[in-house]
C-alpha cells in the first residue's frame, strides 16, 4: 500500500507526467490584457492568440512545433506583445492575420521555413529578431519577415541570414526598416507594389540583391551600407518600374553591379558613395531621374546605360581628368561616362567577359578622348572636382612591409649584380 501511495505521489509531482494545463489552455483562460511569463521549457504545441496579451519568455523558453501549423499565430486581435522566445523548426514561426498594434521583439528563429508572416494587419513592430534560415536553395525557403496588404510596419535592429528574402513586402504601406543586418539571402529587402517605404541604416551583404524594389513608389532608401553582392546577376540595389524613389547617402561597395535603375521615373539618386563595384550604376530606360552629388570611386565601369542614357549632374568621378581653374568646386569641362564597351555589355551579356581586359582599357581611353567632344548620352556637365567625402587621413604606415620590401629589393639587386659579374 505504501508503494502505491509513493508511486501516486511521484506521478502527481513529476512535471509533465501528471495532468498539466497546456499553454493554449492557459492562454485561453487569461483575461484580455493579461501578461503571461513562460517557463524555461520546450513547448511542442502551436498556440493561437486572439485577444490582447503580453507573452514574455525567459532564457530557455523554446517552441519546437512540427507540421504546417505556425508556432504562434495571432489573429483578429490587437495589442499583443511577444518577447524573448526562441522558435525552432516548423513551417512558420509567427503568423499574424488581421491584427493591429502587435509587437514582436527579441525573438530568435532558427531552421523555420518562414520566420514572420503578416497578412492584412496594421501598426506592427518587429525588433531585435535573429533569424537563421535552413540550409538549401532559396526557392525552398520562406522569408525572414513577409508582409502582405499591411501598413505602418517597423522592422528594426534585426539580423536575418540564409532566407529567401530578408524582408518581403507586398502591397504594403509605410514600412520602416532600420538597423537591420541581412545577408546570404536571395534579396535583402524585396518590395512589391508597396508605397511609402523607408529603408535606413541597414547593412545588406552577400545576397543576390541587397534591395529589390519593384512597382513601388514614394519611398526612401537612405544611409544603408550595401556591399559584396558578387554572385552571377548580383546587384546592390535594383529599382524596377518604380517612381518617386530617393536613394540617398548610401555606401554601395564591392558589388557586381552597384545600382540598377530599370524603367524608373521621377526619382533621385543623391549623395551616395559607389566604391569598388564592378559596375557602379546602370540606367535602363530610366533617363529622367536626377543623379547628383554621388561619388564614383574605383568602379571598373563607372556608369553604363542603354541608348537613352541618364541624367547626371554634380557627381564626383575618380577617373575624370578635370581642371578647376575658377575654383568653383566643379570641373571646367564636362565628364562623359559613356564607354562603348559598357553600352555593349548592356546589350550582350557575354561581353562582360572582357571586363577590364587590356583591350577594353585601351578602348575606354579612346572613348574618353572622343566622347568628350561628341556624346551627351551619359554626360555630367558639372562634375565635382573633389570628392564630397574627404579621405580618412593618412594611411597607416607599416614598417614591416617597408622593411620586407627593402630587403627583397636588396636581395634582388645583390643576385643581379652577382650573376652579371660572374
Amino acid at each position, binding site marked *: 500500500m505504501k508503494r502505491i501511495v509513493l508511486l501516486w505521489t511521484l506521478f502527481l509531482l513529476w512535471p509533465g507526467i501528471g495532468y498539466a494545463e497546456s499553454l493554449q489552455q492557459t492562454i485561453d483562460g487569461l483575461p484580455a490584457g493579461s501578461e503571461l511569463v513562460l517557463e524555461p521549457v520546450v513547448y511542442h504545441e502551436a498556440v493561437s492568440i486572439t485577444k490582447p496579451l503580453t507573452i514574455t519568455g525567459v532564457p530557455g523558453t523554446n517552441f519546437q512545433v512540427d507540421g504546417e501549423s505556425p508556432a504562434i499565430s495571432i489573429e483578429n486581435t490587437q495589442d499583443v506583445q511577444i518577447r524573448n522566445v526562441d522558435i525552432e523548426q516548423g513551417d512558420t514561426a509567427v503568423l499574424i492575420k488581421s491584427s493591429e498594434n502587435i509587437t514582436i521583439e527579441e525573438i530568435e528563429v532558427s531552421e523555420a521555413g518562414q520566420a514572420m508572416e503578416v497578412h492584412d494587419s496594421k501598426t506592427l513592430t518587429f525588433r531585435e529578431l535573429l533569424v537563421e534560415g535552413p540550409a538549401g536553395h532559396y526557392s525552398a525557403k520562406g522569408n525572414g519577415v513577409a508582409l502582405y496588404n499591411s501598413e505602418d510596419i517597423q522592422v528594426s535592429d534585426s539580423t536575418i541570414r540564409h532566407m529567401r528574402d530578408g524582408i518581403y513586402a507586398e502591397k504594403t504601406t509605410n514600412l520602416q526598416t532600420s538597423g537591420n543586418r541581412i545577408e546570404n539571402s536571395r534579396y535583402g529587402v524585396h518590395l512589391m507594389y508597396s508605397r511609402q517605404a523607408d529603408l535606413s541604416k541597414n547593412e545588406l551583404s552577400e545576397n543576390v540583391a541587397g534591395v529589390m524594389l519593384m512597382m513601388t513608389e514614394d519611398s526612401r532608401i537612405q544611409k544603408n551600407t550595401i556591399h559584396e553582392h558578387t554572385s552571377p546577376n548580383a546587384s546592390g540595389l535594383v529599382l524596377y518600374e518604380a517612381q518617386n524613389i530617393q536613394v540617398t547617402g548610401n555606401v554601395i561597395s564591392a558589388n557586381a553591379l552597384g545600382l540598377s535603375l530599370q524603367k524608373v521615373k521621377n526619382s533621385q539618386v543623391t549623395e551616395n558613395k559607389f566604391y569598388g563595384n564592378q559596375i557602379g550604376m546602370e540606367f535602363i530606360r530610366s533617363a529622367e531621374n536626377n543623379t547628383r552629388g554621388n561619388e564614383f*570611386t574605383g568602379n571598373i565601369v563607372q556608369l553604363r546605360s542603354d541608348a537613352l542614357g541618364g541624367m547626371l549632374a554634380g557627381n564626383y568621378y575618380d577617373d575624370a581628368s578635370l581642371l578647376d581653374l575658377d575654383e568653383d568646386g566643379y570641373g571646367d569641362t564636362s565628364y562623359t561616362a559613356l564607354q562603348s564597351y559598357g553600352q555593349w555589355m548592356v546589350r550582350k551579356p557575354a561581353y562582360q567577359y572582357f571586363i577590364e581586359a*587590356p583591350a577594353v*582599357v585601351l578602348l575606354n581611353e579612346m572613348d574618353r578622348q572622343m566622347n568628350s567632344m561628341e556624346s551627351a548620352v551619359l554626360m555630367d556637365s558639372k562634375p565635382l572636382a573633389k570628392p564630397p567625402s574627404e579621405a580618412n587621413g593618412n594611411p597607416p*604606415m607599416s614598417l614591416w612591409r617597408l622593411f620586407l620590401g627593402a630587403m627583397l629589393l636588396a636581395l634582388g639587386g645583390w643576385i643581379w649584380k652577382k650573376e652579371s659579374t660572374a
Partner: protein
Amino acid sequence: MLRSRWLQLVGLLFVFVFAAVMAIQQLAIPPSSGFSRQAAAMFNVQLFLLPLFLLTIGSMNIAGDAESGWLHLLKTYPMKMSRYIAGKYMALTGAFLLIALLSMGAVLAISGIAGALSGMGVYIVTSLLLIFIFSALALVLGAIAKNRLHALALSLVFWASWLLLIPYALMAVGTALAGHVVKTLIIFNIHVNPVEWVRFCFFLATGNGDALGPAFYGLTGFYTEPLGVATAIAFTALWIVLPLSFAAMVLKRRKRQA
C-alpha cells in the same frame, strides 16, 4: 642573360612602371574586396608588359645566337637542341623571376608607406604563370625567326594579336552575332590564346569568376571543381611543354639541314 644591358633596362622599366601604377592606385582608391580596379590595374600592368618583354627578349636572344653564328658553333658540339632550349628557358625564366621579385619588393616597400595592398599572393601566381608560359612561347618565336629583326617583328605581331587584336575582332564580330555564338567564340579564345588563358586563370585563382558574368557561370563552375582544376593545371603545362618541344624540334630540323 643578366649582363644584357637591354634586360637591365627592361627590368628597371618594369619595376618602375609597376611600382608607380600600384602607388597611384593605392593612394587614389579605397581598399576593396573582390575584383577591384586596384586588382585589375595590377594585373593589367603584368599582362601588358611581361608578355611584351618576355617575347621580345626571349625570341631575340635565340635569334641573336643564330644570327651571330654562335648557334652554329654550338651545333658542332655533342649537345642536344632540347638541352640548349632547356638552358635558354631556365635563363629567361630566372631573369624574369628576378625582375618580378624586385617589383614585388618595390611594391611592398611602397605599400609600407602608402597603405595596405591586397592580392600580393595573386601577383606572385600570375607572374609565375606569365613568365613560365611566355618564356616557352618566346623560344618558339626565336627558333622560327631568321634573324633578330624577324624575331622582334614576330613577337610584336603575336603580342598585339593575343592582347588586343583578337579581343577587338571578337567584340566587333560579336556585334553582328547571336549571344550564344559570341560566348562560344570567347570560350574558344580562352583556350587558344595564352593571354586569355592566364587572364581566365587569374579570375579563377582570385575567386572572382563571377566577375566574368552570368554567361560564363558554367565554365567557371567547371574550372573550380577538382576535375576542372586538374584540367587547368594540365592545360597550363601544355602551354609550356608544347612550345618548348616545338622550339627544340625546329632547331633540330635546322641542324639536320645545315
